[in-house]
């Protein structure tokens, strides 16, 4: 986490920012963003939402989701046109995450976020031209699926405890270790991997690699079953003598920790934004239900215990979203607002879970039944407080920014 702060200023400018035109900002969204939102929403409603139930039951969604999103240009919204991207800004990718969350299956949004905002930005930022052509271009097209390999059985919140090693052998790298909770891990074509390249160098001993998943020695040792986010695949990976050429190194040797800390900021923002958008949808459903469901001769929304709770849920969502938008706006401009991003993820995650829990209560027995999507939203929501840096890690980072 100290490393996370150390790079606060170091990575300024690495995000292409859309310059703001006015001095006063009433919204981070331009008319172009609004238009994008309209078309993504239509796409999500037409192409994804009808299958949400089926994918949840299957515990998976088909690869064509990536290619179809790729055809629409949605996987490259914030990437340069010369790699097949749309050349847009960070806010545009945020719009995508908010809208995909409305498909009703949290796992889909998560898988897409891994593709667009977690595993590939490091390729653009730190990769060679050859790596960009080989991995980024097809990832934007949706023909190559990416995963990100950070977490290990003994290194979750404690990223610096990563034990997977990459050792030089001639000009090659030989990698050994294991990774866990890897989203897209079962189906990915390549993995953006963190490994230790120097045991003595502390935070400076990590490097990033791009590993094609068909490399001998790379194995999905287990498909993990989760309580929520059922449509996304989660893998445990074993890495045994995976031999890679020198060109597999992504960026500068020894810079891995810094690079990953930078990656995590974007991940936390879009993850939280998507989660809050799902929460907004749930709130809308709660309000509609509270107007329609009657008890003791009147709609339950007419009872203060319910109406005040809904008012509180709406307020908290609004506050969490404002926090995310503010941090996203600054991040998009090239700032590195670690404190605000951590606050946005912490607060957003707590709010989303409170809302989900209230929603289940408002729906009562119906909420607990598998026949309504409320329980799914409740299960899906739970992950944001764990993945991408748990609440406790966020609090730790925030405390550090206050000199504690």
């Amino acid at each position, binding site marked *: 986490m100290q490393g996370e702060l150390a790079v606060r200023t170091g990575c300024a400018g690495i995000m292409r920012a859309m310059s703001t035109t006015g001095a006063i900002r009433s919204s981070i969204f331009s008319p172009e963003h609004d238009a994008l939102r309209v078309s993504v929403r239509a796409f999500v409603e037409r192409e994804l939402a009808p299958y949400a139930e089926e994918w949840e039951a299957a515990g998976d969604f088909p690869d064509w989701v990536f290619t179809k999103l790729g055809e629409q240009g949605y996987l490259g919204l914030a990437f340069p046109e010369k790699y097949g991207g749309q050349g847009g800004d960070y806010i545009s990718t945020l719009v995508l995450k908010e809208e995909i969350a409305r498909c009703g299956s949290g796992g889909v949004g998560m898988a897409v976020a891994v593709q667009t905002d977690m595993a590939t930005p490091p390729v653009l930022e730190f990769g060679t031209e050859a790596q960009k052509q080989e991995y980024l271009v097809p990832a934007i097209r949706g023909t190559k699926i990416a995963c990100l390999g950070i977490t290990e059985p003994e290194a979750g919140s404690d990223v610096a*405890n990563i034990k997977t090693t990459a050792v030089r052998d001639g000009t090659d790298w030989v990698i050994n270790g294991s990774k866990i909770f890897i989203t897209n891990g079962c189906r990915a074509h390549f993995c953006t991997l963190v490994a230790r390249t120097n045991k003595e160098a502390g935070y400076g001993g990590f490097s990033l690699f791009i590993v094609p998943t068909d490399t001998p020695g790379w194995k999905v040792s287990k498909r993990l*079953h989760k309580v929520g986010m059922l449509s996304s695949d989660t893998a445990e990976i074993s890495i045994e003598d995976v031999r890679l050429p020198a060109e597999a190194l992504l960026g500068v040797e020894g810079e891995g920790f810094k690079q990953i800390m930078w990656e995590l900021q974007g991940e936390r923002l879009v993850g939280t934004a998507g989660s809050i958008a799902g929460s907004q949808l749930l709130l809308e459903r709660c309000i509609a239900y509270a107007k329609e469901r009657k008890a003791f001769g009147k709609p339950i929304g007419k009872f203060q215990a319910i109406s005040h709770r809904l008012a509180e849920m709406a307020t908290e969502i609004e506050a969490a979203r404002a926090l995310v938008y503010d941090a996203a706006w600054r991040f998009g401009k090239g700032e590195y607002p670690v404190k605000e991003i951590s606050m946005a993820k912490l607060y957003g995650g707590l709010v989303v879970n409170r809302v989900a829990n209230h929603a289940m*209560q408002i729906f*009562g*027995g119906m909420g*607990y*039944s598998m026949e309504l999507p409320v*329980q799914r939203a409740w299960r899906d929501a*739970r992950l944001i407080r764990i993945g991408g840096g748990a609440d406790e890690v966020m609090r730790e980072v925030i405390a550090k920014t206050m000199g504690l």
Partner: protein
Amino acid sequence: MEPRFELFTEEHDAFRVSARDFIQREIAPNVEAWEEAGDFPRSLYERMGELGLLGLKYEEAYGGSGPDYLADAVLTEEIALCGSGGVAAGIGGHKDLGSLYVYKFGDEEQRKRWLVPSIAGRAIGAFAVTEPDAGSDVAGLRTRAVRDGDSYVLNGQKIFITNGSKADYVVVAVRTGAEGYGGISLIVVEKDTPGFSSRRIETVGWRTSHTAELFFDECRVPAENLLGEQDKGFVYIMQNFQWERLIMALGAVASAEKILEMGISYARERVVFKRPLAKFQVWKHRFADLATEITAAKALTYHALRKFVAGEDATREVSMAKWLATELDWKVSDEVLQVHGGYGYMMEFPAQRAWRDSRLGPIGGGTTEIMKEIIAKTYGL
């Protein structure tokens, strides 16, 4: 020797040891398989009947060993430790709802017919009050029973009925009279009665128990299936709610204690930043908070239990204990899931099951909102 918590005697302590032994030996090892199958075998009722565990509240004349509500409270706490909320619910739906209604409001003939086999574990009972449009609002129920000669003819629908698709008989709350709480009666419907059918509903937790929707379509039952007096059902239900809610509070406290233990032992083992999670102040204090809250909820629950067994009006205390304990059970599960990190979210670890199972507590048997409504009423609000 003073009884523990001014409640339990040495006999109860001895009973706890043997109940725990049975549950840990014959239930707990099967929980994973039963959760996977989404069911537990009927033979568990028979086995419990054999051991006398289903008759603690009833006299020997019916095959019971009581009446001893405290022994039943002990059993409830121990079942909550089996690791499957659904098993506890399936047993509770039988011993504290179906058969208890027959005992409390039925006549000798009815007790012989349904209670005796229930105590032996040969017949499984259920109780049905909730309807699609009447959950918290019991007095708003609409399933109708019309007297026709020597029979009642039932039409309507029930929902979220524990044991509903497994039970041999269901005590059904029906409307026999006018709108409101004055027109409700309890009628027993046996499994194979023509016009009665059920559909199991999948739930996010309690996966080993049957939660069902029940349908009554011109369902004709003999008039002698009426429990107690016609149109007195609402009062009967309110009476039994006290025990049902106490049972839920007792189970929730026991479950919270067990889950907290699980969280603490995981925190002792899991090393991050070179030390066990349990050594971080944030976790130490959180565990301390939860332990304090559990101890408070337990004291409140036992206070309500003392009043209940003494025959006093415990409505206020029972309602308080029910919401506080069940909300706490889930809160503890939520924190314990958090301490497990990514593993907490995985189906291989029991934390997620505790989290799903405990979420029903604040909804079932009268929601938290209803409990608060009742509490407010006891203060004249």
